[in-house]
């Protein structure tokens, strides 16, 4: 029991002194302001009080009475310094009151110093007890001082209670009031000797200091965690170990002396042991301190490091953004964060990503938005409070303010790279509580700074990639991107993927009619509409010229058909705006093919979609055609697109223009020759080639002099030789059009004779290409039946008879007979104007030797 009393008797003042001194050191190390200074004064008086008490108890010179007076003086200082601190804490200014109490304080101190407060004080050994007790006599000054001290403390409490009613917003005020109350009780306890003999006042003082410390911490005036530094831990621990060593030496020295050990060796051992155990203890305590105060900060630091690693060398904007928003959410503990990134197209900062998935913001910030203007000038973040208080934000429009209010905006953090604002992170209220922890936002600011460079690089990369993959005119992906994307999408797809190839109908004619500028404008407009309808359901690319490719992942044929039909209808109704012709319209033909049902890989998919598109064009345009086997049969046909056909027609038109007499000859030959080919059982692709060859068979006549070409009388031998050259000329022309190469055999051989007496290569029978034989019959028939000025009239029957007559000599006999049959059966229609006939001699190919 006695030992417990000794512990209380000595321990509490020692602890109190250590505690007060500790707080004083922490305060001294921290950043000072009025409040800290006031609190330091209060702590200084408490340190003095504890110190004087210890000195008094130890009867240190000049004696107990002296230290008692110092102690009383310090005790009397505590309420006044407490009062000063309180006034500073609640930011109250009462100069008169301060002066009044100050004067009284000085008077009390004088009275105390003159010996009127304690008249006598001596430390006496308590009988049958190991400790000494203070015996003192109070003077008149003590009673007066006590009254004044209590009056001051009561004033403090009264004011505090009044302030609390008004200023409940003032963080920590409750703790300060509690601390004042505890001091009041502690000092009051001294008036009751039964309790007063215990160091209740010290205990109360220490507790009160703790409460005040906590109040200051709450008020964020003192960042406790930054003050409790490694140095403080080191100093405190070193002191403790030294004190413990001294006690150990003192306590055990007698024991070792009895053992006959040299005390010096003993001290050396103790010191050595102390030094050895110091380092692990220090580490242990330091870790605990870190755990206590730096735990969150450390976790955040680790998170920042992880984030830095995550974005290093990452050039994908979405990945960098995702990493940033995830890190922001982790550090702030708040999911309501939004990333805005500068969009060059709209010249505004648009929402890019939120920490919380599926969240989206519809508003954008233009360059005139006050946030953007602020970040252009300053690097500091913007807080919600600033919007109200900083006149800079008076520039804000009501709509912008409403947008920010709607997301409960709290903090905006800039993302700047090379001094340029590339984006910003908006942090918003977590539910209804505002983000109070500015430390978090500062850390997020650091995250932002780290992310800025990565985002900037990713943006540049994306821009470069975009420039390489975007078609400038239509703002759709280009051919290169399309090919990569198609390969990737088909490889990835697990369900079905449909590819649509949409071609603008007769676009070349539109271009010819209105010029390329208008054509480009039309294409851009159509592309924009297609993108609009497709939205995020697929990828729109410009495959080539006037053909768009639409990749529709996870879309079956039915859905794709509906979507493409929607596009078709939209384009059909779309006015290609023009001042001169507001009613100008274009239509779209589309071929669809679905992977993996109708194609095994991306290449076949593309080919099949192309076949379907060609079919759509062929079958009347402005329609959507699904790929199927029928379309597949016409595979070869797809080699010719509408542009090429247009070229062919343009060339035949050129011959017609040069030789009016044979006007329409090529088209008629094409009609007859394809009818013969079809009747002879040719494949559709062959028929198509023959049709093309028929159209081009006389193309070389462009190079024949007009006087020969349009001569109305019989040609001379020289003229005939010149005329014969048109075959070679035709081939020369066609050679320049690689996609027409397949028609060359038919064209080159159309003046060959079955009997081998034709030209230019003197081929005979089946050596003559099938197409050429068809054209030969058709060409001769049209020549007989056409209104040529150098011949007389012949009727169709005579013409047919002539064909039959020359079967086996000039013509393939089967073909001649088949054709005659077709004419007689009326399966080949002859235009009425062709009923007139001419002299036979001139149309037949002369045998050449």
């Amino acid at each position, binding site marked *: 029991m006695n030992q417990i009393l000794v512990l209380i008797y000595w321990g509490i003042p020692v602890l109190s002194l250590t505690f007060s001194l500790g707080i004083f050191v922490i305060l001294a190390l921290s950043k000072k302001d009025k409040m800290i200074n006031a609190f330091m004064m209060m702590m200084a008086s408490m340190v003095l009080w504890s110190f004087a008490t210890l000195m008094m108890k130890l009867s240190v010179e000049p004696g107990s009475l002296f230290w008692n007076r110092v102690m009383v003086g310090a005790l009397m200082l505590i309420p006044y310094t407490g009062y000063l601190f309180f006034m500073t804490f*609640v*930011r*109250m200014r009462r100069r008169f009151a301060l002066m009044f109490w100050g004067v009284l304080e000085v008077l009390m101190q004088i009275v105390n110093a003159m010996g009127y407060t304690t008249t006598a004080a001596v430390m006496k050994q308590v009988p049958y007890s190991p400790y000494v007790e203070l015996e003192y006599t109070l003077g008149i000054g003590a009673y007066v001082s006590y009254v004044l001290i209590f009056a001051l403390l009561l004033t403090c409490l009264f004011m505090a209670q009044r302030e609390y009613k*008004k*200023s409940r*917003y*003032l963080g920590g005020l409750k703790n300060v009031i509690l601390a004042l109350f505890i001091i009041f009780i502690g000092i009051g306890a001294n008036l009751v000797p039964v309790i007063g003999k215990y160091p209740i006042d010290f205990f109360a003082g220490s507790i009160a200091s703790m409460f005040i410390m906590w109040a200051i911490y709450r008020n964020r005036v003192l960042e406790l965690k930054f003050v409790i530094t490694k140095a403080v831990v080191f100093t405190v621990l070193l002191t403790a170990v030294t004190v413990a060593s001294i006690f150990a030496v003192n306590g055990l020295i007698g024991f070792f002396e009895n053992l006959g050990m040299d005390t010096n060796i003993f001290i050396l051992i103790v010191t050595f042991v102390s030094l050895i155990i110091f380092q692990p203890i220090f580490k242990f305590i330091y870790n605990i301190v870190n755990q206590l105060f730096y735990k969150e900060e450390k976790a955040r630091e680790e998170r920042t490091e992880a984030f830095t690693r995550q974005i290093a060398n990452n050039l994908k904007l979405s990945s960098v953004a995702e990493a940033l928003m995830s890190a922001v959410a982790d550090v702030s503990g708040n999911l309501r964060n939004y990333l805005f990134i500068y969009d060059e197209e709209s010249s505004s900062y648009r929402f890019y990503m939120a920490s919380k998935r599926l969240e989206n913001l519809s508003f954008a910030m233009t360059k*005139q938005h*006050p946030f953007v*203007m602020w970040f252009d000038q300053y690097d500091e973040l913007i807080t919600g*409070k600033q919007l*109200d*208080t*900083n*006149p*800079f934000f*008076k*520039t*804000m*429009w*009501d*709509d912008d303010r409403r947008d920010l209010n709607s997301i409960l905006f709290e903090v905006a953090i800039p993302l700047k790279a090379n001094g340029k604002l590339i984006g910003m992170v908006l942090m918003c209220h977590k539910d209804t509580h505002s983000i109070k922890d500015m430390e978090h936002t500062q850390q997020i600011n650091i995250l932002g700074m780290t992310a800025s460079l990565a985002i900037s690089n990713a943006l540049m990369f994306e821009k470069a990639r975009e420039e390489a993959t975007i078609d400038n005119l239509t703002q759709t992906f280009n051919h290169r991107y399309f090919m990569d994307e198609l390969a990737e999408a088909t490889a990835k797809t697990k369900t079905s993927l449909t590819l649509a190839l949409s071609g603008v109908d007769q676009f070349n004619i539109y271009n010819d009619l209105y010029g390329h500028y208008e054509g480009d404008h039309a294409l851009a407009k159509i592309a924009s509409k297609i993108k609009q309808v497709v939205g995020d359901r697929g990828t729109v690319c410009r495959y080539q010229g006037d053909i768009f490719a639409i990749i529709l992942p996870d879309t079956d044929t039915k859905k794709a058909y509906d979507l493409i039909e929607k596009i078709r209808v939209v384009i059909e109704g779309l006015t290609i705006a023009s001042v001169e012709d507001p009613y100008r319209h274009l239509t779209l033909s589309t071929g669809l093919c679905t992977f993996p049902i109708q194609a095994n890989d991306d290449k076949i998919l593309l080919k099949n979609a192309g076949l379907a598109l060609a079919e759509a064009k062929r079958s009347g345009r402005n329609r959507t055609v699904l790929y199927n086997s029928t379309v597949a049969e016409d595979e070869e046909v797809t080699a010719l697109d509408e542009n090429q056909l247009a070229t062919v027609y343009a060339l035949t038109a050129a011959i017609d223009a040069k030789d009016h007499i044979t006007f329409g000859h090529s088209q008629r030959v094409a009609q007859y020759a394809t009818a013969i080919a079809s009747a002879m059982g040719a494949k559709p692709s062959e028929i198509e080639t023959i049709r093309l060859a028929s159209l081009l068979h006389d193309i070389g006549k462009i190079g024949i002099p007009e006087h020969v070409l349009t001569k109305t009388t019989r040609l001379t031998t020289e003229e005939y030789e010149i005329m014969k050259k048109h075959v070679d000329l035709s081939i020369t022309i066609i050679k320049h059009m690689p996609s027409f190469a397949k028609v060359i055999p038919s064209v080159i051989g159309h003046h060959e004779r079955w009997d081998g007496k034709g030209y230019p290569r003197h081929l005979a029978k089946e050596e003559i290409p099938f197409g050429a034989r068809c054209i030969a019959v058709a060409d001769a028939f049209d020549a007989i039946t056409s209104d040529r000025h150098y011949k007389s009239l012949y009727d169709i029957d005579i013409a047919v008879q002539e064909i039959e007559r020359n079967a086996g000599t000039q013509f393939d006999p089967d073909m001649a007979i088949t054709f005659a049959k077709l004419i007689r059966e009326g399966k080949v229609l002859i235009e009425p104007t062709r009923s007139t006939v001419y002299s036979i001699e001139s149309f037949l190919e002369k045998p050449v030797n």
Partner: protein
Amino acid sequence: MNFDALLNAKRKDEIWQKYCGFLDLSVSEFMDIQNSLLLEQLQLFENSELGRSIFKNKHPKTVAEFRKMIPLTEYDDYADILLSKEVSKLPAKPVVWIETTWEGGRAPVKVAPYTAAMVENYKEACLACIILASSKAKGEFDLKVGMNFLNGMAPLPYLTGLLPDVLEGEYTVNYFPPIKEGLAMSFGQRNKEGFKMGLKQGLDLFYGLSSVIVRMSEQFVEGSGSTKTSLSGFKVSQLAKYAVAKIRSKIDGRPVYPKDVFNLKGFVCIGTDTLHFKQKIEDYWGIRPLEVFGGTEVTCIAIESWIKDGLVLLPNMCFYEFMPMSEFYKNLENPSYVPKTYTLDEIKEDEYYELVVTNFKGGAFVRYRVGDIFKCEPNTKKTDGVKLPHFRYIDRIDPVIDLAGFTRITEATIAQAITMSHLHITSWFALKRYDSQHRPYINLTIELNHPQNDPGFDDAVLIKEQLEIYFKYIDGDYANLHKMLGIEPLQVTIIPYGTIDRYLKTISHPLQKVNPNHYDVVEIMKLAYGTKGDRA
């Protein structure tokens, strides 16, 4: 957090920054706010019928285009839509309509719609006034929750009456007299009752019309602090103060001044002739009043800083343009002339300007000629370090005589009074003058014909009395000038018949009937009374 909470939490810096932070703006920052909010207003305005009627198919997209394309306007341009309160035709939905008299207008009153955002801005301006009124240095203001507030201004639908509404729920004050009771009182009664209550319970804030404050102060001093009120309801401290003041006045042999009895924290005053009354108010009350400028069409647009020496414009209330007086006169002589205007960053010190405003936040008025003259004072003479220009409110534009902020006399008012009086006044002109006590009055210079048939024709006093009958009849506030403020509002000067006609033959410009220019007046007086001239 509302204003009460901020005050209680002692967040003085935050309060100052929020409400008075505009005083730290540079001119370019001020213009950034102006330009940004003007573009917002253009967008709102363009989409409204009122906007289309004013813009007349013009679509300004920039501030420069706006100033170039849009004509200057007057209330007549808005009257059809505003007087019928056609909300659907306005740029934004109003939450309150503010009224004022329309002197010389085609209706008795003018009305102006206030949107929620405008009211919010007005609230901030009012709080800024109160803060600055109680400030002696930058950031140092002396306000508490629950202060005693004498609101001596007109109730709704006048703009001043909006104050209690905007402060409700934001800043708690004890109104003297309480708002509800005050509504049942006349203007004079309300001021008297508020003053009495202040005397008993102490007064912290005073918001009033300068001329009325001076008159009340004079009456208090003349009665030497006599209150003619019972002792009931007196706060002990106030009674002690009152008693000490009485004793001191006896000992010193001087009257009791309001400053002996009241310890005002803030004094806000408005009114046309505030410039002339300010010093008097400070002498009486021991506190320099803070001048504020506002109006029905413009809301509260200018406040003095803590030095109370020159008005500073608020950046977010209206877009301000300034028309130099030279341009004003050119336009006055030739109404088809389009006067030039300047923005705040373009004006010159020591110049006089007529103010032209465009409301922000969905307000109705665009390039509106308010009819007030300001002088831009040199910043070098100001000690507050505010970088924005300081202005001195001079008066209403010349064709209007504003008497102590109580009433505005126009050419039409005077002409009507003369016609009704049947006096043979053939020519006249009127000037605004100040008496020895800085009180404003109208000096009406007249010519009479057929003097021999009109006994007493040359008795200026008789003519004045006769004219006053009709002035009082036409303008109700005119009567109050004498009753409430002790002002003699009219003086008549008679000049020989034909003088004005003779003068008109010598000049090429027309003679302005109200407040003609000084040169014209001097020349007429020379013609009338010889070279010595100026009796007006």
